[in-house]
């Protein structure tokens, strides 16, 4: 397990996402209202580019004809077959126990902390004045 610096925080403002490659894995970094999440860009169903899917809210229901809508923007729908995944956990809605996508720890770290290491930041130089996205894997 190592901590990888993958982007400047300012590159991924709220409501946006960025695809990065860490140790050969494509990972989607999402900024949801200032919180960062990271998911493997591979749907466990048939391998679709999950992190290019649409973010929607969670809808549940207690009775036919009622729609309980919550957590807007926290469910990621695979662009291939529409399976929904929880941005926070990677679990699928339909089969959370056995169908899930790998979710990674993401933190935002100031450059001055990063400069002390130990971090893997081969791809770009770290400046102590800025904040950076760090993914652990």
């Amino acid at each position: 397990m190592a901590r990888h610096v993958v982007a400047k925080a300012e590159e991924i403002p709220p409501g946006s996402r960025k695809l990065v490659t860490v140790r050969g894995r494509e990972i989607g970094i999402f900024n949801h209202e200032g919180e960062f999440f990271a998911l493997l860009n591979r749907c466990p169903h048939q391998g679709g580019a999950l992190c290019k899917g649409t973010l929607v809210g969670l809808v549940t229901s207690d009775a036919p004809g009622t729609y309980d809508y919550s957590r807007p923007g926290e469910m990621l729908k695979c662009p291939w077959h529409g399976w929904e995944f929880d941005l926070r956990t990677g679990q699928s809605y339909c089969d959370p126990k056995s169908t899930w996508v790998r979710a990674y720890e993401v933190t935002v770290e100031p450059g001055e902390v990063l400069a002390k290491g130990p971090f893997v930041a081969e791809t770009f130089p770290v400046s102590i004045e800025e904040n950076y996205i760090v993914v652990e894997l």
Partner: protein
Amino acid sequence: MPHAASGIDCDIHPALPSISALFPYLPAYWSEQLRVRGTDGFDSILYPPNAGFSCRADWRDGAKPGTSLEALRRHALDGFGTRIAVCNLLYNVAAVRNADLGTVLARAMNDWLAAEWLDREPRLRAAIHIAPQDPGAAAEEIERRAADPRFVHVLLPAMDETLFGKRLFRPIHEAAARHRLPLAIHAQMTATHATTSNGWPSHLAEDHIAMAHAFQAQLLSFVYEGAFTAFPELRLVLLESGFAWLPNFLWRADRTWKAMRAEVPWVDTPPSAILREHVRIALQPAEAPPDPAQLPILLEQLGGDELLLLSTDWPHAQFAGNDPFPAGFPATLRRRVAEDNPRAVYPRIEVSP
């Protein structure tokens, strides 16, 4: 061959000799209307009386098939060693545009069945016939008839101009669920609308095959409209549906649910799980694989020993001899299908009249 059935047959078909048999059971206005109009009846066009499949050759006696109680006793009851058999009239009341006429016809059919068949033969049970075009009146008929324990399910046609899971049929769902009366959907067409989603086919043989799709659409309607969510006690019994199409249908239904479940958030488990709990299917006509060795594979794919119910479909010609189970049907499952499964889905069936 031994009597393989010796159980509960959930689908036999007595028939009205003619519409005039209902006149004594109709309000005076309506029997006069039918007489004055010369209305000739509402027999199912799926089974033309002289067609070979409408009655087994060894059961034909010159009369219109299904009209003789003696023939029913001899062939449908004694012939199979049947303890109890459920009578379903394939009389097309759902096709009657005038809902008032449909309602009084359905009520008359139930009265006629009780008086002319059930009262004379204690081994018989019957469907509650309803006119679904007036759901409120249909629910009232269920309510009225539920007091008589010889009525064990509520009959609906597979093909109509709508799908019976829809909310406007809630009065029917509610009444049926409250009295533990399964809704029995029978291969039947009202012929008031095209029988395929591509319009009218040219031949009756196409209508018969198109039924499988109609059953699938009805099952999905009950799941996705949330009928089982609203009424967990509700059960469906499919009659003359066949069952070989079911595994493929369930696989596809589950796959589609995973993609589109946000459209129906009250469906929070896979459709296959909901349907396995709430649906039972009659054995005949059994579209079994040509190779009997493959039948156990199909049964395993159906998933569950609780699914099938014994039926002979008397007097229709679905199989020869006195064993309604298709070749290759596991001996260990027979008692379940003939006794345990029907008793579980028909809690009223053992109540003495």
